[in-house]
């Protein structure tokens, strides 16, 4: 290891102009949110209230068992009904938090698979996902706070009347009670669910701190020992992540449609997070490159990132189709209700098809050729399409289950998404500006410099 390469040290400067642009984005988001809230408040006064629509639709489409799953508003029992506009706000907050939490987690996941695979090509870009991962603690705190704020409206299974003898008793959800409430009885405090949330974010964050510490120590004291330490940490993290990412998907997304389940769902959410994360990493790398940073990243490295995005767009489609195909073919009412809510006679059907066009057709065709993957311009065109596309994907996973036919996609949803995006970028870019942009003592740096495909 005597041979040392010298690369120009780089430090990202978070300039005030960039910061101001992000604050403008934040302000636009807030304005849109207020406008959207105002409009939703006015229009919800005219609507006939409650789950009337939804019950009717569900009965039409699913003759028997599942009407109660799709009619949350119906069984509210003794509680005061939450206004539609507030429910819409809760839904979009939850959905955006799950989406952006994924971007943070994928930052860490990307770094760990590079270590576990002993990858050399990515040595120059690792600081970008590292900065993205700094969103993990914020996402965790937000997730916990939002859960306590919104759980009654978003998660049907939190209603205690489902577990007690009476008109609302639901034998299917009652059977699932231990998954949420263990060791307590169904309908009390979901200690198992909350513990999982805290443990997942806690463990992810702990791994992030350790790996970041080693990466930064490597900058000061050269040598391969930090790299080896990180390789061990990464491998252990990946084992934990394999389980926790799936369970997180069941907890935070799938349990909204409490009756329904899909064995593909953990993978589906992971695939969506992963390809969005890859697109975000690539977009940030491409933007840094355009701004004159990351001189050691050339079209060969972009090609690898592009291949990653191309491949995992197809992977996501594969998972999407596997889930759809099984449910379509088996045609069991408890399962098909999920897609009926989203396709047939539904306000979400345009999102359902847009999702496929943005996340499969466009990336597949635009990134197919070698040249497209090697150019900044095409990558900068395709990555925003994928990020927006998977935002639609998460919207379609969360909203129909909560809002039934009353959900919307207007100023409120766009506003909240812009607020999340602005804050996410502020956090990520601040974190990026605090450490050197290139790990100059990374043992694989020379391999990365000579990377040629």
């Amino acid at each position, binding site marked *: 290891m005597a041979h040392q390469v010298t690369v120009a040290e780089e430090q990202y400067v978070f300039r005030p102009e960039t910061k101001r642009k992000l604050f403008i984005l934040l302000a636009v988001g807030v304005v849109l949110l207020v406008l959207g809230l105002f409009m939703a408040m006015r229009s919800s006064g005219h609507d006939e209230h409650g789950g009337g629509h939804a019950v009717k639709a569900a009965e039409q489409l699913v003759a028997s068992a599942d009407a109660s799953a799709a009619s949350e508003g119906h069984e509210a029992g003794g509680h005061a009904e939450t206004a539609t506009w507030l429910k819409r706000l809760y839904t979009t907050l939850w959905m955006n938090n799950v989406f952006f939490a994924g971007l943070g987690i994928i930052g860490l996941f990307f770094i760990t698979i590079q270590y576990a695979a002993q990858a050399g090509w990515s040595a120059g870009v690792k600081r970008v996902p590292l900065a993205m991962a700094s969103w993990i603690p914020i996402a965790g705190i937000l997730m916990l706070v939002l859960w306590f704020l919104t759980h009654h409206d978003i998660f049907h299974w939190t209603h205690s009347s489902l577990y007690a003898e009476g008109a609302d008793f639901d034998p299917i959800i009652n059977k699932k009670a231990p998954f949420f409430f263990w060791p307590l009885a169904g309908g009390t405090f979901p200690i198992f669910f909350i513990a999982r949330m805290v443990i997942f974010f806690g463990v992810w964050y702990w791994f992030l701190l350790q790996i970041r510490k080693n990466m930064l120590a490597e900058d000061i004291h050269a040598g391969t020992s930090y790299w080896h330490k990180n390789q061990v940490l990464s491998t252990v993290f990946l084992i934990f992540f394999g389980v926790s990412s799936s369970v997180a998907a069941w907890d935070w997304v799938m349990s909204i449609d409490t009756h329904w389940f899909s064995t593909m769902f953990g993978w589906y959410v992971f695939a969506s997070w992963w390809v969005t994360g890859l697109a975000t990493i690539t977009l940030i790398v491409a933007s840094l490159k355009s701004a004159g940073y990351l001189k050691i990243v050339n079209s060969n490295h972009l090609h690898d990132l592009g291949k990653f995005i191309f491949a995992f767009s197809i992977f996501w489609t594969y998972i999407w*189709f596997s889930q759809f*195909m099984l449910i*379509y*073919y088996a*045609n069991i009412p408890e399962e098909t209700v999920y897609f009926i809510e989203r396709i047939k006679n539904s306000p979400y059907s345009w999102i359902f098809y847009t999702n496929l066009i943005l996340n499969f057709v466009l990336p597949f065709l635009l990134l197919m*050729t*070698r040249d497209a993957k090697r150019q900044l311009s095409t990558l900068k065109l395709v990555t925003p399409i994928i990020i927006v596309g998977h935002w639609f994907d998460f919207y379609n996973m969360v909203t129909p289950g909560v809002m039934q036919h009353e959900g919307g996609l207007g100023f409120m949803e766009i506003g909240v998404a812009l607020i999340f995006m602005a804050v996410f970028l502020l956090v990520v870019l601040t974190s990026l500006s605090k450490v050197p942009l290139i790990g100059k003592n990374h043992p694989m740096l020379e391999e990365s410099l000579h990377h*040629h495909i």
Partner: protein
Amino acid sequence: MDADKNFIVGVFDDEEVLLTGIEKVRGNGVKIHEVYSPFPVHGIDDALGYKRSRLPIAAFLFGMTGTSIALTMQIWMLGYDWPMIIGGKNFASLPPFIPVTFELTVLLSALGMVGTFFIVSDMKPYKWPRQFDIRSTDDKHIMAIDLAKNQSIDKTVLGKILKDAGASEVNEKNFE
């Protein structure tokens, strides 16, 4: 191809020398017939000035052929020729056709690529490849120069160019 029978062959020991050697030889206006190496050498395509292969285009076209055949076959069979009710679905419904369509796309593009590659590379049964120097399968890099295509340069000058470019030996090779 058969007209090319007389070659001058340079033997190189080291791939770094070979890479710079190729540039020196081409810099002298010599057209290189082919370079043989026992292992893949990074950057040799660029050094030899090879254009990118058009095999991906062929693969895409073969793939699209597979997609069309699969969809046409299934829609015709199950939708028109012999409609059958399966699981209460429409006769010609797209989702169940996707797996077959995917498989046929992959199959035809793979077989088509292999076939195209064989034809383009002139690989066929009972074709005996020319062996310029048996050591190219062991530890030497072999650069073959076709004399018929470099008639403006004298044979001895070619030998000198190869030597200057770093060849450890220079031989002549004539095929029957």
